[in-house]
């Protein structure tokens, strides 16, 4: 297993024993490294098949999601990857703001756990898209659940080439149908209902024909055999921005009563309900890529920062002419 580049790991996987992280330090590091990543991208563009070769070196936790048919597509067409933490603002406020507790600190410094993974592709025989961009918003539900949620990305597959066997398209169609009928406001919405009462719409969400269709497809599919490209259809739990803001405010108030800054223990702990406390939600039945968040974090933290190291390993093994 490749040792991931350590830049963000101590900050984002802090388990609580080292409370050295804060939104401000993550944001500072993130912004300081942006120009280096830009420089890296310029160099990488000169190396043919850099990203397909890096993905070939992916650790097993990521590699398990890449089927042989995916590898063929990636090798032929995958030209560029960019990972950004898009909720971190471009400019940081004065350092004194670092002392602000959540949710104020996250409002000021942004939520560093939200991710955008942008894949670029050369013209290919599989799909029409030249860019597939997948966003993950870090959200908190009012029952205490925390995690990254996303929206399905539509892939314009060429006839007979859909590696997801229609799963991705069905996930996207359900999402669109739910939006059109007002059952969703989008995880990026500014106009959601903002409360747990929104879950009352759960029954209505399930009455759509698109829901039944996708549920059946998911039931008939075998977990673990899906295409990597089904990951673009991942949604996760539905938690609107408004519900997340309300829940984060509540946590902030509770921590405030304890006289501590919430970021001291919470930030970077990726805390969720315990393993035994998994909450079943209606979205589970139609989730086409249940481990979508795990894969996103794997790419963002094990591949993106370590790309040069992964590539170097291959170059050392096979010499300078691997392109």
């Amino acid at each position, binding site marked *: 297993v490749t040792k991931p580049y350590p*830049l963000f790991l101590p900050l984002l996987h802090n388990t609580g024993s080292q409370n*050295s992280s804060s939104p401000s330090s993550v944001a500072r590091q993130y912004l*300081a490294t942006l120009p280096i990543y830009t420089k*890296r991208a310029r160099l990488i563009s*000169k*190396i043919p098949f850099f990203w397909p070769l890096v993905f070939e070196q992916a650790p097993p936790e990521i590699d398990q999601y890449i089927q042989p048919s995916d590898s063929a597509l990636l*090798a032929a067409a995958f030209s560029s990857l960019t990972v950004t933490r898009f909720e971190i603002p471009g400019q940081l406020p004065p350092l004194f703001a670092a002392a602000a507790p959540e949710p104020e600190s996250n409002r000021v410094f942004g939520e560093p756990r939200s991710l955008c993974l942008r894949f670029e592709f050369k013209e290919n025989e599989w799909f029409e898209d030249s860019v597939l961009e997948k966003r993950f918003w870090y959200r908190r539900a009012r029952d205490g659940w925390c995690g990254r949620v996303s929206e399905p990305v539509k892939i314009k597959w060429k006839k007979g080439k859909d590696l997801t066997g229609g799963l991705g398209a069905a996930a996207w169609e359900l999402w669109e149908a739910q939006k059109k009928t007002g059952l969703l406001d989008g995880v990026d919405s500014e106009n959601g209902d903002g409360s747990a009462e929104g879950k009352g719409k759960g029954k209505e969400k399930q009455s759509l024909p698109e829901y039944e269709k996708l549920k059946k497809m998911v039931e008939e599919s075998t977990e673990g055999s899906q295409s990597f490209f089904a990951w673009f259809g991942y949604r996760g739990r539905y938690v609107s921005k408004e519900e997340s803001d309300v829940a984060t405010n509540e946590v902030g108030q509770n921590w405030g009563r304890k006289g501590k800054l919430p970021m001291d223990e919470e930030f970077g702990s990726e805390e969720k309900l315990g393993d035994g406390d998994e909450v079943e939600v209606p979205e589970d039945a139609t989730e086409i890529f249940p481990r979508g968040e795990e894969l996103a974090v794997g790419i963002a933290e094990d591949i993106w920062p370590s790309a*040069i190291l992964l590539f170097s390993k291959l170059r050392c093994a096979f010499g300078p002419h691997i*392109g």
Partner: protein
Amino acid sequence: MSSEPAEANFTTYEELALIEREFEVVETETSD
């Protein structure tokens, strides 16, 4: 996989190694 012209040369790989060093420096300078 050899159909594309390789524009990378020895300098490209040296520069990549230098970039790794830059990441390390930033990590040190910006950690709490």
